[in-house]
């Protein structure tokens, strides 16, 4: 298997060098560039597996660049930004970026996210699966691009990244049992999940967040095997 090629767009020279080095040390081929025109040239130079994009670039903003990129290709994009606000996060992900990496970041976090995004599979798969990216079950509304869950009464139900991914996995396998091992595997590929909490703890937390008044969450435990979302899922 050839090493994945990563296109890095970062205007700060020192940070560009450091990030490039960190990626190279972990076995990636890196094409560093400082500006939008450089990026387009680098795109033409050969296939790219992932783009790491700084939002605040001189000239074109990373957001405009992301839009332009999305029109051309389905290459996975990870935003890098000093603006750590959730608003930016949502904008980034709604624009079709795949993840968001706030500054400052360490090598470990950088590699974990790159690896996770690369592992999530091809963009075509994602598109086909997502549709508009909304899954509904039991009155709940799971908005995949916004990474947001709404309760039956329309309130935002706060979920951590790991909890959200777990719920997505359950929704994807609705009314089918999903093995604990598979869930553990899924949660490991997920970055930002640095703590070692077990899948069972995650499931119990998601359950509590989904439980209504006098009504249990539609997640059932299949003893010795795993878990199952016991609800019909409608996708839009």
């Amino acid at each position, binding site marked *: 298997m050839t090493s994945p090629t990563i296109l890095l767009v970062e205007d*700060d020279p*020192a*940070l560009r060098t*450091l*990030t490039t*080095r*960190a990626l190279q040390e972990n076995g990636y081929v890196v094409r560093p560039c400082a500006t939008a025109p450089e990026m387009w040239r680098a795109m033409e130079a050969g296939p790219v597996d992932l783009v790491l994009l700084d939002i*605040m670039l001189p000239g074109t903003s990373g957001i405009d660049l992301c839009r332009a990129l999305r029109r051309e290709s389905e290459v996975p994009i990870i935003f890098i930004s*000093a*603006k*750590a*606000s*959730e*608003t*930016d996060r949502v904008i980034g992900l709604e624009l079709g970026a795949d993840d968001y990496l*706030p*500054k*400052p*970041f*360490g*090598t*470990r976090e*950088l590699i974990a996210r790159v690896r996770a995004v690369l592992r999530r599979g091809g963009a075509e798969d994602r598109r086909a699966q997502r549709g508009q990216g909304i899954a509904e079950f039991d009155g709940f509304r799971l908005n995949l691009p916004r990474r947001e869950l709404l*309760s039956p*009464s*329309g*309130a*935002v*139900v*706060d*979920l*951590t990244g790991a909890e959200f991914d777990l719920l997505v996995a359950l929704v994807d396998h609705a009314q089918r049992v999903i093995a604990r091992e598979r869930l553990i595997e899924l949660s490991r590929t997920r970055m930002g999940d640095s*703590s070692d*909490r077990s899948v069972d703890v995650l499931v119990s*937390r998601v359950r*509590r*967040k989904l*439980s*209504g*008044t006098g009504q249990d969450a539609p997640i059932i435990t299949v003893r010795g095997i795993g878990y199952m979302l016991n609800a019909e899922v409608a996708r839009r």
Partner: protein
Amino acid sequence: MRKGRILSLGLLGRLLAILLLTMAVEYLASTILYERSSRALIHDDEAHRLAEHLVIARKLVSEQSWPERPSMAARLTTDRYDVHWAGATNPNLPPEGAPTAARARMIEWEPSLADSNLQVRLVPVGRRAQLFGALQLADGTWLRFRAIAPSVGGSLNIHRILLPLFPAGILLLLSALLFRETLRPMRMLALAADRIGRRGGVTLPETGPREVRRVIRAFNAMQTRIHQLITDRTQALAAVGHDLRTPLARLQLRSDAIADPALRQAFETDITEMEAMVGSLLSYVGGEDDPEKPVRTDVAVLAQTIVDDAADHGGAATYVGDDHVEAVVRPIGLKRAIANLVENALHYGHSARVAVIAEERVLLIRVDDDGPGIPDDRLAEVVQPFVRLDPARSRNTSGLGLGLAIVARAAEVEGGSLHLTNRPEGGLRAEMRLPRG
């Protein structure tokens, strides 16, 4: 300041006081003048009557023989004038008497009196004056007379005083209403000035008298300038905060190259602390992004996420509130606020019990700890930005001292408030009270 407020009459009061004073002066002046002139009329009247009386008295007394004269004089004495004849050859008037204008008026009325060497004196009697006089008969003897009633002074009529006060009262009331209306823009100005620095300043319409319009214009300009100044500073701070994150990212990546694990760990701790400072600064100055929009949110779940996260990092955090409490809030700001409270509770109180409770009208977000609490006299102080209770910045205190200031601001943005109390059983209770829409 409070003292001044009690003593001060206020602009309306002052204007009314000025009006009252002018009216009082005007009233007094007019009353005195009126009294004076009416008294002058009375004098004329009296002088004429006396003159007539004297002409008759002179004639009648002169016609009598000397022995008959005193009784004739006595008969001429009325309840108004005392007429007296004793055959004296000098006027024999009280020496302290002063000549008076009454003589001229009497002669003017009865010119024949001028031939009789008429002498009139005003003699002070107590605080008033009495008229004394004498005139010489043809045979050289003097006929003396005096007015029985004191002629000058006299009581002021209560009726005459009160009557003009009635229109004055109406005038005062009317001006009070008019003044109030004129001063209304000032009141608006005060309200607007009070709002500066809080949420949503207002540009006032330029209405009212010219002077007030000028003040309003200046005020609006000042408000714009202040707003601009704050915005500039905020943007500068936010820019610095954002820019710091790039070198921080460099530092962090560089620290990965450090071979010594202990040194690398120390580096990472420092970088994490600096990042926390930048984060809290950005959150405090609000330069992180556009103002957050309120969204319907399950606040209980929000709090549970924070508690779970704290527990995962080894903190003694538990959630004891309602399972689900939905409210329209700004979730990012509120999440940061609750996280700050939990962080404080764990740091100073070594435990955090978090509860989100829906009451009828308020939403309570309560964080209790089992720490030493905060001295009662310093409870208000700790909410101020950049205030730390540790006398010297202790080693394990991270951040800039903005934690509670951010919480208070988040509560304020939701139209609520932050309350810190020392629980009777020990420990601090931090409670955000938000209105339930």
